[in-house]
Protein backbone atom coordinates (compact mmCIF):
# COMPACT_ATOMS: atom_id res chain seq x y z
CA UNK A 1 0.00 0.00 0.00
CA UNK A 2 1.19 3.49 -0.85
CA UNK A 3 2.60 5.50 2.03
CA UNK A 4 0.57 8.24 3.70
CA UNK A 5 0.74 9.97 7.08
CA UNK A 6 -1.23 8.31 9.87
CA UNK A 7 -2.32 11.65 11.34
CA UNK A 8 -1.89 15.26 10.24
CA UNK A 9 -2.41 18.56 11.97
CA UNK A 10 -4.01 20.21 8.93
CA UNK A 11 -5.85 18.36 6.17
CA UNK A 12 -5.11 20.94 3.51
CA UNK A 13 -1.88 22.88 3.08
CA UNK A 14 -0.59 25.68 0.89
CA UNK A 15 1.60 24.75 -2.05
CA UNK A 16 4.75 26.06 -0.36
CA UNK A 17 8.13 26.85 -1.83
CA UNK A 18 10.39 24.49 -3.72
CA UNK A 19 13.36 26.86 -4.00
CA UNK A 20 16.94 25.84 -3.30
CA UNK A 21 18.80 22.57 -3.20
CA UNK A 22 18.64 19.74 -0.68
CA UNK A 23 20.72 20.56 2.37
CA UNK A 24 19.69 17.49 4.34
CA UNK A 25 18.96 13.97 3.18
CA UNK A 26 21.48 14.38 0.36
CA UNK A 27 24.00 11.69 1.36
CA UNK A 28 24.06 7.91 1.19
CA UNK A 29 23.45 7.34 4.90
CA UNK A 30 22.07 3.83 5.35
CA UNK A 31 22.94 1.71 2.33
CA UNK A 32 25.86 1.43 -0.06
CA UNK A 33 24.19 2.81 -3.18
CA UNK A 34 21.57 5.47 -3.72
CA UNK A 35 19.27 7.11 -6.23
CA UNK A 36 19.62 10.90 -6.10
CA UNK A 37 17.29 13.35 -7.78
CA UNK A 38 18.75 16.17 -9.85
CA UNK A 39 15.51 18.12 -10.13
CA UNK A 40 12.88 19.54 -7.81
CA UNK A 41 9.47 17.91 -7.84
CA UNK A 42 6.44 16.66 -6.00
CA UNK A 43 6.71 12.87 -5.95
CA UNK A 44 3.40 11.11 -5.38
CA UNK A 45 3.01 8.34 -2.83
CA UNK A 46 1.99 5.99 -5.63
CA UNK A 47 5.23 6.74 -7.49
CA UNK A 48 7.25 5.97 -4.37
CA UNK A 49 5.41 2.67 -4.01
CA UNK A 50 5.99 1.84 -7.69
CA UNK A 51 9.71 2.49 -7.25
CA UNK A 52 9.86 0.35 -4.11
CA UNK A 53 8.13 -2.54 -5.89
CA UNK A 54 10.45 -2.19 -8.90
CA UNK A 55 13.55 -2.28 -6.73
CA UNK A 56 12.52 -5.10 -4.39
CA UNK A 57 11.36 -7.30 -7.28
CA UNK A 58 14.54 -6.74 -9.22
CA UNK A 59 16.65 -7.55 -6.17
CA UNK A 60 14.51 -10.69 -5.70
CA UNK A 61 14.11 -9.72 -2.04
CA UNK A 62 17.85 -9.88 -1.45
CA UNK A 63 19.62 -7.01 0.30
CA UNK A 64 17.87 -4.04 1.89
CA UNK A 65 15.99 -1.12 0.41
CA UNK A 66 15.71 2.18 2.24
CA UNK A 67 13.09 4.76 1.24
CA UNK A 68 14.53 8.15 2.17
CA UNK A 69 11.50 10.30 1.34
CA UNK A 70 7.98 10.39 2.78
CA UNK A 71 4.84 11.97 1.31
CA UNK A 72 3.96 14.44 4.07
CA UNK A 73 2.16 16.94 1.88
CA UNK A 74 -1.53 16.64 0.95
CA UNK A 75 -2.59 17.88 -2.48
CA UNK A 76 -6.18 18.90 -3.12
CA UNK A 77 -8.13 18.96 -6.36
CA UNK A 78 -11.49 20.38 -7.38
CA UNK A 79 -14.12 18.01 -8.77
CA UNK A 80 -14.59 18.25 -12.56
CA UNK A 81 -17.09 20.70 -14.01
CA UNK A 82 -17.45 22.77 -10.87
CA UNK A 83 -17.60 26.54 -10.84
CA UNK A 84 -15.01 28.62 -9.04
CA UNK A 85 -15.55 29.36 -5.39
CA UNK A 86 -17.22 27.17 -2.77
CA UNK A 87 -13.95 26.65 -0.97
CA UNK A 88 -10.82 24.60 -1.50
CA UNK A 89 -11.10 21.12 -3.05
CA UNK A 90 -10.82 17.82 -1.23
CA UNK A 91 -7.44 16.13 -0.56
CA UNK A 92 -6.69 13.86 -3.52
CA UNK A 93 -3.20 12.46 -2.96
CA UNK A 94 0.00 12.87 -0.98
CA UNK A 95 3.37 14.03 -2.23
CA UNK A 96 6.96 14.22 -1.05
CA UNK A 97 8.64 17.51 -1.88
CA UNK A 98 12.12 16.79 -3.24
CA UNK A 99 14.88 19.25 -4.08
CA UNK A 100 17.92 18.74 -6.33
CA UNK A 101 20.27 16.47 -4.41
CA UNK A 102 17.66 14.63 -2.33
CA UNK A 103 18.47 10.94 -1.87
CA UNK A 104 15.30 9.08 -2.85
CA UNK A 105 16.20 5.44 -2.26
CA UNK A 106 19.15 3.51 -0.92
CA UNK A 107 20.15 -0.09 -1.48
CA UNK A 108 22.50 -2.28 0.55
CA UNK A 109 23.69 -5.86 0.55
CA UNK A 110 23.79 -6.41 -3.22
CA UNK A 111 26.37 -5.99 -5.97
CA UNK A 112 26.78 -2.60 -7.63
CA UNK A 113 25.59 -3.92 -11.00
CA UNK A 114 22.36 -5.26 -9.49
CA UNK A 115 21.77 -2.09 -7.47
CA UNK A 116 22.41 0.08 -10.53
CA UNK A 117 19.91 -1.89 -12.58
CA UNK A 118 17.29 -1.78 -9.82
CA UNK A 119 17.71 1.98 -9.47
CA UNK A 120 17.38 2.39 -13.23
CA UNK A 121 14.02 0.62 -13.11
CA UNK A 122 12.93 2.81 -10.19
CA UNK A 123 14.07 5.98 -11.97
CA UNK A 124 11.79 5.07 -14.88
CA UNK A 125 8.79 5.43 -12.55
CA UNK A 126 9.68 9.02 -11.74
CA UNK A 127 9.26 12.19 -13.73
CA UNK A 128 12.57 13.66 -12.62
CA UNK A 129 16.16 13.29 -13.74
CA UNK A 130 18.08 11.13 -11.30
CA UNK A 131 21.52 9.62 -10.93
CA UNK A 132 22.95 6.53 -9.28
CA UNK A 133 25.49 7.26 -6.54
CA UNK A 134 27.67 5.15 -4.29
CA UNK A 135 28.65 5.74 -0.70
CA UNK A 136 32.37 5.67 -1.51
CA UNK A 137 32.14 8.27 -4.26
CA UNK A 138 30.19 10.66 -2.06
CA UNK A 139 32.59 10.75 0.90
Amino acid sequence: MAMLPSRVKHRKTHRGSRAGNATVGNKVSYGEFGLQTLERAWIKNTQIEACRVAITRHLKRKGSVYIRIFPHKPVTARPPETRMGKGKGAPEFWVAVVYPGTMLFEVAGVSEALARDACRLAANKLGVRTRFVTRQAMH
Partner: protein
Amino acid sequence: MAKILDLQAKVRTAEGTSAVKRLRKAGSIPAVIYGKKHSNAKVEVNSKTFTAIIEHSASDNILVNLKIDGEANDALALVQEVQHDYLRGGILHVDFHAVAADEDIHASVPVVLSGIEAAEKKGGKLEFVLHSLEVHCLPKDLPESIALDVSYLNVGEATHVSELTLPEGVSTKLEGDVVVAILKEPLVAEEAPAPAADAKAPAKGKGAPAAKAAAPAAKPAGKK
Protein backbone atom coordinates in the same frame (compact mmCIF):
# COMPACT_ATOMS: atom_id res chain seq x y z
CA MET B 1 48.39 4.55 11.70
CA ALA B 2 47.43 7.63 9.74
CA LYS B 3 50.31 9.34 7.98
CA ILE B 4 50.99 12.99 8.71
CA LEU B 5 51.01 14.88 5.41
CA ASP B 6 52.43 18.30 4.71
CA LEU B 7 49.99 20.87 3.37
CA GLN B 8 50.61 24.46 2.36
CA ALA B 9 47.99 27.05 3.33
CA LYS B 10 47.58 30.78 2.87
CA VAL B 11 45.83 33.24 5.13
CA ARG B 12 42.47 34.04 3.57
CA THR B 13 41.09 37.54 3.29
CA ALA B 14 38.09 36.61 1.11
CA GLU B 15 34.89 36.42 3.12
CA GLY B 16 31.25 36.02 2.19
CA THR B 17 29.46 34.02 -0.48
CA SER B 18 30.55 35.79 -3.64
CA ALA B 19 34.17 36.27 -2.58
CA VAL B 20 34.44 32.61 -1.59
CA LYS B 21 32.87 31.56 -4.90
CA ARG B 22 35.57 33.54 -6.74
CA LEU B 23 38.17 31.83 -4.58
CA ARG B 24 36.87 28.39 -5.57
CA LYS B 25 36.91 29.36 -9.24
CA ALA B 26 40.54 30.41 -8.86
CA GLY B 27 41.41 26.90 -7.66
CA SER B 28 41.43 27.23 -3.88
CA ILE B 29 39.32 25.72 -1.15
CA PRO B 30 38.28 28.02 1.71
CA ALA B 31 39.12 26.59 5.11
CA VAL B 32 39.35 27.48 8.76
CA ILE B 33 41.71 26.36 11.49
CA TYR B 34 40.85 26.34 15.18
CA GLY B 35 41.96 24.62 18.32
CA LYS B 36 42.66 24.90 22.03
CA LYS B 37 46.18 26.13 21.54
CA HIS B 38 45.76 27.78 18.15
CA SER B 39 43.97 31.03 17.42
CA ASN B 40 41.11 30.81 14.95
CA ALA B 41 42.12 31.75 11.43
CA LYS B 42 40.63 31.75 7.96
CA VAL B 43 42.89 30.00 5.47
CA GLU B 44 42.79 28.65 1.95
CA VAL B 45 44.38 25.52 0.51
CA ASN B 46 45.08 24.46 -3.04
CA SER B 47 42.12 22.57 -4.43
CA LYS B 48 44.12 20.06 -6.53
CA THR B 49 46.49 19.18 -3.68
CA PHE B 50 43.77 18.73 -1.10
CA THR B 51 41.48 16.74 -3.41
CA ALA B 52 44.39 14.39 -4.19
CA ILE B 53 44.98 13.90 -0.45
CA ILE B 54 41.30 13.08 0.14
CA GLU B 55 41.12 10.70 -2.83
CA HIS B 56 44.19 8.73 -1.75
CA SER B 57 43.14 8.31 1.87
CA ALA B 58 40.92 5.56 3.26
CA SER B 59 38.82 8.05 5.19
CA ASP B 60 38.34 11.75 5.86
CA ASN B 61 40.46 11.35 9.02
CA ILE B 62 43.67 12.90 7.87
CA LEU B 63 46.38 14.45 9.96
CA VAL B 64 48.19 17.30 8.25
CA ASN B 65 51.15 19.44 9.08
CA LEU B 66 49.68 22.77 8.04
CA LYS B 67 52.28 25.28 6.89
CA ILE B 68 50.51 28.61 6.99
CA ASP B 69 52.23 31.46 5.14
CA GLY B 70 53.52 34.04 7.61
CA GLU B 71 53.44 31.72 10.65
CA ALA B 72 56.72 30.59 12.15
CA ASN B 73 55.53 27.17 13.40
CA ASP B 74 53.68 24.45 11.52
CA ALA B 75 50.33 23.45 12.98
CA LEU B 76 49.48 19.78 13.46
CA ALA B 77 45.82 19.58 12.48
CA LEU B 78 43.14 16.96 12.01
CA VAL B 79 40.79 17.35 9.07
CA GLN B 80 37.70 17.76 11.23
CA GLU B 81 35.08 18.26 8.55
CA VAL B 82 34.99 18.32 4.77
CA GLN B 83 31.92 19.88 3.17
CA HIS B 84 31.21 18.24 -0.17
CA ASP B 85 28.97 19.60 -2.88
CA TYR B 86 26.58 16.66 -3.09
CA LEU B 87 25.05 17.87 -6.33
CA ARG B 88 27.93 19.05 -8.49
CA GLY B 89 30.81 17.25 -6.80
CA GLY B 90 33.95 18.84 -5.39
CA ILE B 91 34.86 20.20 -1.98
CA LEU B 92 33.26 23.37 -0.64
CA HIS B 93 35.01 23.95 2.66
CA VAL B 94 37.40 22.32 5.10
CA ASP B 95 37.69 22.56 8.88
CA PHE B 96 41.15 21.97 10.34
CA HIS B 97 41.26 21.17 14.05
CA ALA B 98 44.66 22.08 15.49
CA VAL B 99 45.61 19.36 17.95
CA ALA B 100 48.44 18.85 20.39
CA ALA B 101 50.58 15.74 19.84
CA ASP B 102 50.15 14.70 23.49
CA GLU B 103 46.38 15.23 23.81
CA ASP B 104 43.59 12.74 23.06
CA ILE B 105 41.47 13.38 20.01
CA HIS B 106 38.26 11.74 18.87
CA ALA B 107 37.50 10.90 15.29
CA SER B 108 35.17 8.73 13.25
CA VAL B 109 37.14 5.89 11.64
CA PRO B 110 35.64 3.70 8.88
CA VAL B 111 35.17 -0.02 9.54
CA VAL B 112 36.40 -2.16 6.63
CA LEU B 113 34.95 -5.66 6.35
CA SER B 114 36.75 -8.64 4.87
CA GLY B 115 35.63 -12.21 4.29
CA ILE B 116 32.14 -11.16 3.14
CA GLU B 117 32.03 -13.72 0.31
CA ALA B 118 33.13 -16.55 2.62
CA ALA B 119 30.37 -15.65 5.09
CA GLU B 120 27.69 -15.33 2.40
CA LYS B 121 28.57 -18.78 0.99
CA LYS B 122 26.93 -20.18 4.11
CA GLY B 123 23.59 -18.99 2.76
CA GLY B 124 23.02 -15.64 4.42
CA LYS B 125 23.18 -12.03 3.33
CA LEU B 126 25.53 -9.73 5.20
CA GLU B 127 24.08 -6.46 6.45
CA PHE B 128 26.67 -3.83 7.29
CA VAL B 129 25.23 -1.70 10.12
CA LEU B 130 28.07 0.33 11.64
CA HIS B 131 30.03 1.89 8.79
CA SER B 132 32.25 4.01 11.05
CA LEU B 133 33.37 3.96 14.66
CA GLU B 134 34.01 6.91 16.96
CA VAL B 135 37.45 6.42 18.54
CA HIS B 136 39.58 8.24 21.11
CA CYS B 137 43.36 8.23 20.83
CA LEU B 138 46.50 10.30 20.52
CA PRO B 139 47.02 11.87 17.08
CA LYS B 140 49.97 9.56 16.35
CA ASP B 141 47.82 6.47 17.05
CA LEU B 142 44.87 7.48 14.85
CA PRO B 143 44.11 4.51 12.55
CA GLU B 144 43.10 5.01 8.91
CA SER B 145 40.51 2.26 9.18
CA ILE B 146 39.52 -0.63 11.41
CA ALA B 147 39.57 -4.06 9.77
CA LEU B 148 37.06 -6.74 10.68
CA ASP B 149 36.99 -10.30 9.35
CA VAL B 150 33.42 -11.59 9.14
CA SER B 151 34.15 -14.93 7.45
CA TYR B 152 33.53 -16.81 10.71
CA LEU B 153 29.90 -15.63 10.97
CA ASN B 154 27.11 -18.20 10.60
CA VAL B 155 23.60 -17.40 9.39
CA GLY B 156 21.73 -15.43 12.06
CA GLU B 157 24.90 -14.40 13.89
CA ALA B 158 26.12 -10.84 14.39
CA THR B 159 29.45 -9.27 15.18
CA HIS B 160 29.62 -6.55 17.83
CA VAL B 161 31.83 -3.62 18.77
CA SER B 162 33.37 -5.71 21.57
CA GLU B 163 34.76 -8.11 18.92
CA LEU B 164 36.66 -5.36 17.08
CA THR B 165 40.41 -5.47 17.57
CA LEU B 166 41.41 -1.86 18.08
CA PRO B 167 45.07 -0.87 17.69
CA GLU B 168 47.07 -0.11 20.81
CA GLY B 169 46.23 3.24 22.37
CA VAL B 170 42.85 3.44 20.60
CA SER B 171 39.57 3.17 22.51
CA THR B 172 35.89 3.72 21.83
CA LYS B 173 33.08 4.91 24.06
CA LEU B 174 30.47 2.85 22.23
CA GLU B 175 28.86 0.00 24.17
CA GLY B 176 30.27 -3.43 23.39
CA ASP B 177 26.90 -4.87 22.34
CA VAL B 178 26.40 -2.48 19.40
CA VAL B 179 26.07 -4.52 16.19
CA VAL B 180 28.66 -3.92 13.47
CA ALA B 181 27.46 -6.45 10.90
CA ILE B 182 24.89 -9.21 10.84
CA LEU B 183 24.57 -12.25 8.57
CA LYS B 184 20.85 -12.37 7.88
CA GLU B 185 18.82 -15.26 6.56
CA PRO B 186 17.85 -14.49 2.95
CA LEU B 187 14.13 -13.90 2.43
CA VAL B 188 14.23 -15.27 -1.12
CA ALA B 189 14.36 -18.90 0.05
CA GLU B 190 10.81 -18.71 1.48
CA GLU B 191 9.36 -17.20 -1.71
CA ALA B 192 10.59 -19.72 -4.27
CA PRO B 193 8.63 -22.91 -3.40
CA ALA B 194 5.28 -21.15 -2.81
CA PRO B 195 4.16 -20.56 -6.47
CA ALA B 196 5.16 -24.09 -7.49
CA ALA B 197 2.98 -25.64 -4.77
CA ASP B 198 0.00 -23.42 -5.72
CA ALA B 199 0.22 -24.32 -9.38
CA LYS B 200 0.31 -28.08 -8.71
CA ALA B 201 -2.65 -28.27 -6.31
CA PRO B 202 -5.49 -27.12 -8.62
CA ALA B 203 -4.11 -29.06 -11.60
CA LYS B 204 -4.42 -32.33 -9.69
CA GLY B 205 -7.82 -31.75 -8.07
CA LYS B 206 -10.11 -29.64 -10.26
CA GLY B 207 -8.45 -29.66 -13.66
CA ALA B 208 -7.37 -26.96 -16.09
CA PRO B 209 -10.28 -24.40 -15.87
CA ALA B 210 -9.98 -24.22 -12.11
CA ALA B 211 -6.25 -23.72 -12.41
CA LYS B 212 -6.83 -20.81 -14.82
CA ALA B 213 -9.28 -19.20 -12.40
CA ALA B 214 -6.84 -19.59 -9.53
CA ALA B 215 -4.01 -17.92 -11.40
CA PRO B 216 -5.43 -14.35 -11.58
CA ALA B 217 -6.52 -14.55 -7.96
CA ALA B 218 -2.99 -15.40 -6.91
CA LYS B 219 -1.50 -12.40 -8.70
CA PRO B 220 -2.84 -9.60 -6.45
CA ALA B 221 -1.98 -11.67 -3.41
CA GLY B 222 1.58 -11.87 -4.63
CA LYS B 223 1.70 -8.09 -5.08
CA LYS B 224 0.82 -7.45 -1.46
